[in-house]
């Protein structure tokens, strides 16, 4: 109010203007008038098209009302076709002034009809002479901003041009510029008239100055009017200047470098408040109607609201993160507060933003919910160049397309209506949060506001009961229950609201509430939302999960034969798991694990017994089960088919050459594996000739009988096959010893093929003979469960290499002949018998080495050896595999990959190989895996090895490896999401190499970094440079030799003590501790490293 007085008595420096119009009576009451903007009563007039202008009331506020009926859409458009840069409105709100490079005119807007009124540009151009009578120079003016004076100067308009001139026009004498103000020497960005004293004009320019002009001098000094004041001191252009709506002498501007400053026009020296608001150029500022707050919008995509009523260091009170660089922003005219205790005072929390030229959308934001726009519209194809609010609901925009548009914001779509009102998220630990909100029923706007208000707080708002021709409610339209809620939930503190009331001492509840009063009560406006927080169904408790993951025993060390020790180990493992589960409170699960453990153990005992008996009865020879050979053989064959040229193969035999095709043609009979198992070596050597020789058509005909081994195993008596297997295995083993390593590997992978060449399947007599030889083929430490090296090692025990070479060749010969004459003769058995004898001799020689072999195989045992031929579970109530499958299924139903993994990893190796998968399934599985392994770059030999060691048993035991793989990878993912990396690594180790899905993703980018001992950061450059980038500490040298390389050979290999952390060259340390008998750390730290 002090400032207000000062306005009426201007500072001495401003000359007394001679022709000052007589002050109107109401100006004397300006003190009060400044403070309220608005009307004593809400416009309830139902008359359409009648505007109630603020001016008729003599209030010098900005409040204008367009009386619109609730359903009316007051959108109006005026097309000019010329690019419009800027728009201004006269005080009465009836006319718009459009300015642009080629346009400068006023438009009258009434009842949604726009009509051009004064075309200043044509008037100027049609006036050939300047006011002086001299010929007017023709040049185009590029108008950057226009302003329309208020009050008694209402005929004057000002246009800022890019050349730095400000031209004033009197609309009554449109042809002549009233005056040109030319002191800015760079582009003028903005001009604005003081809302309280309309003779004061401010202009802001690129040259970094703001100038104040007094138009009272115009009539006399028209040609040499000089600015009254110059506010300089900015290094950058002034983008926007605005007078304060409440203080007549204050104004604010924003600059190109992002400063927003508030100045008092009487003080030239320094700004009252100066805030570095933005990092990029501040394109526009706008005063909140309360006169305290300023919204500033910038190219850095922020709209920030500042409190400019005090000069202290401050941050933005509120900010809106806009989606694009903001070029324009304006507060929406205030509306009635719907808080009952505000007594119908006015509030203003919304503003409209427009963006840079690529983004044509216009948003209306509400600071009470700044995360998303309230309404949205895109009237033009590019962004509007300027906009202003005519009244609370009517927004005027102009654009590059040359259209002036009056849009009714009530008809702009709400953003929230396009959004999903419910959302959920799941945390890695299995928490789920779900938020939803009731969507408001779409109603026609006429029922819209009254219904809400009456239903919610009929006590506070006096809405007239007639609804049909009701004039539009001027209440807060964002309180619609979906965007914001009407709920006086939190009582405002008395003092606060009393303070709010104090301001409007002039009139009853017509002042604008300070923004802070509304905003600090924001909580109560949160829309009503329901939220669910909880655990995912089927998701285990994270603590339990962690505990179990840490505690579970997943595997036991298997031995080649079932003895008491092994049984005890297994029992202990199961016991600890059961206890663990029980301690987690999962008694159900504990019980089932207990049962399955019991059955497993029983089964193992039975097996042990059977095994013992067999051993006692006959001196068994280790032999191969049929299936295991089958799988690797199948895989190798598939690989060979895949990689080698299939040309020599008759189409009937090899109808599908690629795996994908095979997969596609799952059930075609041609997919059936031919019993022709070509040894890989043969294939390599003479794939063409060998293949060509094969009487394949015959094969096809002949092998309509179960051609696959697995099927064979099930249907035909297993012993025969196993007999063949064992025979051939033994032979191969021997032959392996005679050849070099590569050859051995190859041979190893050949061996499985032999059973495939079992043509005698349909040869009854032969089967008989084999039957008699059955006794041969029992073996406990089956070679398949060992890796290559161990089997090679065992093979080395063979006494006489020379002797063994011969059988090898014969076997090969036999194989070939078998292959060649598949159906022609029955010769092979004889040979095989022969070989068997030879092998028998070897077997005896081998006897003592069986135990070392077994122990050597221990480490690499992936499954418990067993006798697939003998189904020990016959007649039992539970088949172990089926039990396991059911349990896994049950666990998976509950989403419990953890238990499923535990069961599978524990029991699968112990399963008997008596219930193999169906033939078709096996084939598909093998196909898939062969493909995968091949893609991963495994060599054919390695693939065969993997099949032998890992998948063979699983498949033969009746478990689907694909299922196990997916279970394990699921569990692995869970472990990773729980950040249990050790357990995950252990699981990967279990899965390697059979189940690529588990470990695949974690094989690639494992890197090892050294950790700096001082700062703890990883040393990125590795060993190349011995300094740490983090702390630039040099790596300590070896305390023994202090050299780069150890003098005791050893090279640069370092080792360190886990206790004291000191280290040195491994070789040096060895010297120190062993030879020099040092006990303490060589650095002398006193650590007894060696002890």
């Amino acid at each position, binding site marked *: 109010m002090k400032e207000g007085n000062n306005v009426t008595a201007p500072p001495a420096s401003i000359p007394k203007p001679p022709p000052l119009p007589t002050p109107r009576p109401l100006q004397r009451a300006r003190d009060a008038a400044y403070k309220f903007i608005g009307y004593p009563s809400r416009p309830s007039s139902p008359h359409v098209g009648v505007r109630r202008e603020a001016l008729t009331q003599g209030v010098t506020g900005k409040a204008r009302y367009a009386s619109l009926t609730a359903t009316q859409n007051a959108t109006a458009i005026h097309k000019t076709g010329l690019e419009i840069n800027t728009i201004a409105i006269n005080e009465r709100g009836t006319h718009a002034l459009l300015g642009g490079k080629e346009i400068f005119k006023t438009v009258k807007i009434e009842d949604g009809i726009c009509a051009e009124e004064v075309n200043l540009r044509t008037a100027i151009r049609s006036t050939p002479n300047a006011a002086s009578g001299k010929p007017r120079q023709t040049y185009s003016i590029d108008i950057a901003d226009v302003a329309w004076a208020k009050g008694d100067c209402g005929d004057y308009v000002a246009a800022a041009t890019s050349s730095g001139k400000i031209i004033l026009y009197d609309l009554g004498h449109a042809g002549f510029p009233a005056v040109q103000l030319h002191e800015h020497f760079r582009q003028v960005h903005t001009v604005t008239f003081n809302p309280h004293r309309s003779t004061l004009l401010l202009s802001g320019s690129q040259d970094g100055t703001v100038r104040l002009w007094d138009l009272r001098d115009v009539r006399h000094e028209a040609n040499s009017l000089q600015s009254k004041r110059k506010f300089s001191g900015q290094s950058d252009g002034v983008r926007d200047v605005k007078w304060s709506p409440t203080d007549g002498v204050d104004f604010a501007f924003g600059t190109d470098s992002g400063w927003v400053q508030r100045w008092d026009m009487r003080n030239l*020296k320094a700004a009252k408040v100066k805030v570095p608001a933005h*990092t990029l150029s501040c394109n526009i500022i706008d005063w909140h109607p309360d006169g305290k707050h300023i919204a500033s919008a910038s190219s850095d995509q922020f709209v920030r609201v500042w409190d400019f009523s005090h000069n202290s260091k401050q941050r933005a009170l509120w900010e809106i993160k806009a989606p694009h660089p903001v070029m324009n922003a304006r507060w929406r005219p205030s509306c009635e507060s719907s808080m009952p205790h505000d007594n119908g005072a006015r509030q203003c929390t919304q503003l409209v933003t427009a963006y840079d030229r690529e983004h044509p959308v216009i948003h209306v934001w509400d600071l009470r919910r700044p995360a998303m726009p309230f309404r949205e519209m895109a009237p033009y194809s590019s962004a509007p160049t300027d906009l202003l609010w005519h009244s609370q609901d009517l927004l005027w925009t102009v654009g590059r397309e040359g259209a002036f548009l009056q849009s009714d914001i009530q008809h702009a779509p709400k953003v929230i209506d396009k959004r999903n009102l419910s959302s959920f998220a799941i945390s890695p630990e299995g928490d789920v949060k779900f938020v939803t909100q009731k969507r408001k029923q779409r109603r026609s706007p006429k029922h819209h506001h009254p219904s809400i208000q009456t239903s919610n707080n009929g006590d506070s708002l006096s809405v007239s009961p007639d609804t049909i021709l009701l004039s539009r409610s001027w209440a807060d339209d964002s309180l619609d229950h979906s965007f914001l809620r009407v709920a006086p939930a939190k009582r405002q503190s008395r003092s606060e609201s009393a303070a709010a009331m104090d301001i409007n001492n002039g009139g009853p509840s017509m002042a604008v509430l300070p923004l802070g009063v509304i905003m600090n009560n924001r909580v109560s406006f949160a829309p009503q939302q329901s939220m669910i927080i909880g655990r995912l169904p089927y998701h285990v408790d994270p603590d339990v999960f962690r505990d179990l993951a840490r505690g579970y025993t997943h595997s036991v060390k298997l031995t080649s034969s079932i003895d008491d020790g092994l049984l005890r180990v297994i029992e202990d493992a199961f016991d600890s798991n059961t206890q663990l589960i029980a301690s987690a409170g999962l008694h159900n699960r504990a019980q089932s694990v207990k049962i399955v453990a019991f059955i497993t153990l029983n089964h193992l005992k039975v097996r042990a017994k059977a095994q013992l008996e067999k051993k006692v009865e006959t001196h068994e020879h280790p032999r191969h089960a049929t299936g295991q050979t089958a799988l690797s053989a199948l895989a190798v064959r598939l690989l060979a088919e895949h990689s080698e040229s299939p040309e020599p193969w008759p189409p009937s035999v090899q109808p599908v050459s690629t795996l994908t095709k095979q997969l596609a043609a799952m059930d075609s009979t041609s997919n059936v594996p031919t019993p022709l198992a070509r040894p890989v070596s043969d294939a390599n050597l003479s794939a063409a000739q060998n293949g060509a020789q094969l009487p394949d058509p015959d094969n096809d005909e002949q092998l309509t009988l179960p051609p696959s081994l697995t099927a064979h195993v099930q249907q035909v008596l297993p012993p025969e096959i196993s007999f063949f297997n064992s025979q051939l295995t033994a032979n191969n083993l021997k032959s392996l010893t005679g050849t070099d390593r590569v050859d051995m590997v190859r041979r190893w992978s050949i061996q499985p093929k032999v059973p495939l060449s079992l043509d005698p399947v349909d040869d009854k007599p032969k089967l008989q003979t084999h039957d008699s030889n059955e006794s041969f083929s029992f073996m406990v430490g089956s070679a398949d469960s060992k890796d290559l090296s161990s089997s090679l090692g065992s093979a080395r025990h063979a006494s006489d290499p020379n002797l063994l070479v011969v059988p090898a060749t014969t076997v090969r010969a036999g194989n070939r002949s078998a292959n060649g004459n598949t159906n022609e003769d029955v010769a092979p058995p004889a040979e095989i018998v022969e070989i068997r004898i030879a092998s028998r001799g070897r077997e005896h020689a081998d006897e003592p080495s069986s135990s070392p072999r077994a122990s050597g195989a221990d480490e690499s045992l992936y499954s418990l050896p067993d006798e697939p031929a003998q189904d020990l579970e016959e007649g039992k109530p539970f088949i172990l595999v089926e039990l396991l499958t059911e349990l896994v299924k049950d666990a998976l139903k509950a989403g419990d990959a953890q238990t499923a993994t535990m069961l599978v990893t524990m029991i699968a190796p112990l399963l008997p190989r008596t219930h193999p998968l169906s033939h078709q399934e096996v084939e598909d599985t093998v196909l898939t895996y062969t493909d995968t392994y091949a893609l991963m770059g495994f060599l054919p030999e390695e693939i065969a090895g993997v099949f032998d060691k890992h998948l063979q048993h699983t498949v033969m035991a009746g478990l689907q490896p694909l299922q196990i793989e997916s279970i394990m990878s699921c569990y692995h993912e869970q472990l990773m999401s729980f950040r249990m990396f050790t357990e995950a690594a252990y699981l990967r180790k279990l899965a390697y190499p059979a189940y690529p899905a588990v470990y695949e993703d974690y094989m690639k980018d494992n890197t090892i970094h050294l950790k700096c001992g001082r700062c703890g950061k990883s040393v990125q450059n590795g060993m190349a440079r011995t300094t740490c980038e983090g702390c630039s500490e040099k790596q300590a040298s070896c305390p023994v030799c202090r050299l780069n390389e150890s003098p005791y050979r050893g090279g640069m290999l370092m080792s360190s003590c886990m206790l004291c952390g000191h280290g040195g060259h491994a070789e040096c340390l060895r010297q120190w501790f062993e030879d020099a008998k040092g006990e303490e750390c060589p650095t002398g730290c006193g650590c007894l490293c060696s002890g």
Partner: protein
Amino acid sequence: MRTLFSENILSPSPTPAPQSNPFELLFPSSISTASSADSTQSSPTQNEWLTQHLQNQQRTESETANQANYAANGQQAPNVRRKGNPKMLFMGLRRSGKSSIQKVVFEKLSPADTLFLEPTSRIGTVKMQSFITFESVELPHQLSATTPDFDHHAVFSHIGAVIWVLDVQDEYLTSISEMIQTAVFLAENYPRVNFEVFIHKTDGLSEEYKYETFREVRQRVQDELSDLGHGDRSVSYFQTSIFDHSIFEAMSKVVQRLLPQLPAMEALLNKLCSTCGIQKAYLFDTMSKIYVATDASPTFLKDYEVCSDYVDVIVDIKQIYGWHGQDGEGKAVSERRNQDDGDIGESMVTYDRSGDTYIYAREINDYLSLICVMGKGSTTNKRVLIDYNVGILHDALLQVFKV
């Protein structure tokens, strides 16, 4: 054809620099109308008022003597100060990146190589001979401006701008206090020297943090300066990093403030933009990638980056085919036309899939290029208009710089 400039625009006074008010040459109409109006409407009351007004003005000036002093200086600056080339002085704490900036901007050192620069111990001068000869001096940290035995006059008297480099990744509070000392010293002794602050090494900082520190530094310096009575002094702040275009943009703005021809060039570009539907026009010093002027529309770093990259391309090709246009400009999409005044180097490139927006480059002379980001609607069929207007701009610019 109606174009943005009347043909006689340059005739009244073709050389702007010696004039007291350089912009007047561009808009002679304003002077004439103003003077003519003056002659017609003069009245005794008005004269009375005039004297009154003058008295008032004098009073105001005496009131704010201090400030008016600066203001006057600033106003006359284009005439008085800096007869020669724009000269910049880099100051800042050690290892704040002064030498790096110099090397990267003026010597085209690769930013990554600045890691190996030795600390500077002596006052070093770097000169870049291009369209405008830039001269930059680096003051090593141990030489403080405020020490009494230091020959201020030798250093500061010829300087157009002092650039304080502040390492934002370091502890910057000490730097701020030294900076304020220097700023105060300059404000008191050399008020005509622009003071600029580079908040340097902002690469690698998060947006949030960047804004916070930027705001913090600005607010702090501003507060302290106003406490010391120099709150009116304009200090500009720039966030810079040698690893992106921000250092060039900041240097451009520093250089622009030292150029007396800036308003003229800016006005020319403004006109050109509004006539030809150009989104953004830059006048590049081709060698240094510094733009000496742009139009007044809001700048976006994106535009500058695109143009600057394009200048890089032009420079690269020029390095291959020579700087002088006689052998032809072997540019990406080049069109060569013959005009009266000889060959014109111009080229354009589209970077938008729709082809609506494209960049148009035109050589003003060997070391000055006009790069425009064309907006929608200024398609190639308007080329005649564009070419004509750019031709006029070309001539006008040459006139502007013909001293």
